[in-house]
């Protein structure tokens, strides 16, 4: 099993953000985690990435426990997060941002090849390669954030609300790209508030509500589920 999360309990001081969360992800899958703002989705990803420590429970990646491993080591093992709000290094150029994505790599020739393939996927980034990250548009920043993630050769890619704040056309593009990345062999854990799109491309999905998983199933099943439609798909 690629990722296994068991009875995860995470606190921010006195705030009990995750109240016993369990889910898993098989190799090659796209698994979606949907839920309203504040449900705890980002907290899950940050705990998997090692930025937050669980009080109880376990996270295992490729059958090895990682919930006490430091974040930089988790990155080395191939778990790469594209954080919420892109978090582009604003005072660094596009190229430098991509180089930061390849931070754990040392082979200069390989890094150059990887950067070339990111530029092939996102030609807008090539045009803006020497521009500061902070000067890019929202869509370009999201492309840069994903490209930066790909520079690390993820085995498992954690995407935190990649469609946030983008126009519908860009959202379509981003989801196409996510599917494409998945087809090339990267497993994906996708966090979204845009449940419609996420469920459409997900193999399986979990619904998160105030720190608990309240529903799970295949993407298609959840898309047809009346209570999901009611709560997350605008209730038609």
């Amino acid at each position, binding site marked *: 099993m690629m990722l296994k999360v068991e009875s995860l309990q995470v606190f921010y001081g006195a705030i009990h953000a995750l109240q016993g969360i369990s889910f898993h992800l098989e190799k090659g899958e796209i698994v979606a985690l949907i839920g309203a703002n504040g449900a705890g989705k980002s907290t899950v990803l940050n705990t998997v*990435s*090692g*930025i937050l420590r669980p009080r109880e429970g376990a996270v295992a990646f490729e059958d090895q426990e990682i919930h006490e491993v*430091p*974040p*930089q080591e988790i*990155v*080395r093992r191939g778990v*790469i*997060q594209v*954080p919420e709000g892109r*978090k582009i*290094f*604003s*005072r*660094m150029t596009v190229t*430098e941002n991509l*180089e*930061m*994505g390849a*931070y*754990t790599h040392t082979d200069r020739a390989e890094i150059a090849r990887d950067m070339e393939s990111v530029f092939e996927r996102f030609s807008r980034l090539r045009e803006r390669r020497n521009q500061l990250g902070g000067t890019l548009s929202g869509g370009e920043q999201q492309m840069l954030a994903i490209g*930066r993630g790909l520079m*690390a050769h993820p085995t498992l890619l954690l995407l935190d609300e990649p469609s946030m704040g983008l126009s519908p056309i860009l959202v379509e593009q981003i989801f196409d790209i996510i599917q494409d990345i998945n087809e090339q062999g990267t497993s994906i854990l996708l966090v979204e508030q845009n449940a419609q799109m996420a469920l459409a491309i997900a193999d399986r999905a979990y619904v998160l509500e105030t720190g608990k998983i309240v529903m799970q199933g295949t993407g298609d099943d959840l898309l047809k589920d009346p209570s999901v439609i009611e709560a997350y798909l605008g209730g038609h």
Partner: protein
Amino acid sequence: MDKPTSTSTQGRLRLERYLRTFAGIVIGVFLLWRVYNVIVLQQNFGADTWVRFGLSGLILGGMYALIAIGYTLVYGIMFMINFAHGEVMMLGAFGGFFTFEALRFIPAPTLSNPEYNFLNAHPFISVLLAFLVGISISAMAGYFLEKIAYRPLRRAPRLILLITAIGASIFLQNLAMLLFGPQRKNVVNPDILDRGAGWIVNVSGNDVLISYTGIFSLVLSTLLMIGLYILVQRTKLGRAMRAVALDKNTASLMGVDVDNVISKTFIISGALAGAAGVMWGIHMGLVNHYTGFLPGIKAFTAAVMGGIGNIPGAMLGGMLLGVIEAIGPAALGIDFQLKDVIAFSILVLVLIVRPSGILGEKLSEEKL
């Protein structure tokens, strides 16, 4: 409720900015008038004097700049003012001093001069060794300072870090006094870096001495600044340092070991301060436990003046402060002993007129 308060806050901010600009113009015009009076109307000093002052200002400024970079690097990465940084520089100065002392007592007789010691027989190696020792000591001091005093407080309020830094400063000063005694020590340079020696240049009929130690310091500090700039802008470590300064969480999502980068930042800051300390000893000739205090707060002033957190700003601020301090008393027609007052008046002025510094971004206002 919310709207009116925020607009009145904005109004107050705008008024404040006008007042600042106004104060800046008034003070600026007054200073210019004063300088014009002294330099052009009174003509107390000839061109040779100005050259002499300007040069010594640049030399001093180079050392301030090296120290100021340390304040700015650490501020950029931890949002704290490392008030013990001057003491880190002082330890480096002692490192250089003791290296020269040790080498002076190693005999290295030659046929023509049987009394020769290592310091004078191999001056280049001696100077190199002094810098290596001074830089290593300061780099280590920076490393342990962070590891022992600041790291446990990473999540503590910033005020606590600040107080700790002041405590560390007092501790290091007293430690040095205890170890080396309170009296000032004469730094004995190799003969080729004799402090009275240099090139003589004729400026408007008068001789100006351009000392070897001064030019040596100025060249070395310039080279170190260029080196640091390349390190920060062009290397992987430099990129990681900038990334950690911008956003620690995201940097660690890239695989950066944030603690390690913070350690290295303190090591680099310490090393530059150590180099400045050894230069201080070589050029000024005196060291004691108090040596780091004034250069330390002046370099802090320089870093604030250039825009704290901004590396070119620290370099520019250091150089400017050195020159202003050297030329200031004469240009304003005031007592030379007031040069320290000038430096700190500048700090106050900068804080009034442009709190973000010359090259700094307008962070302070956005954060209000």
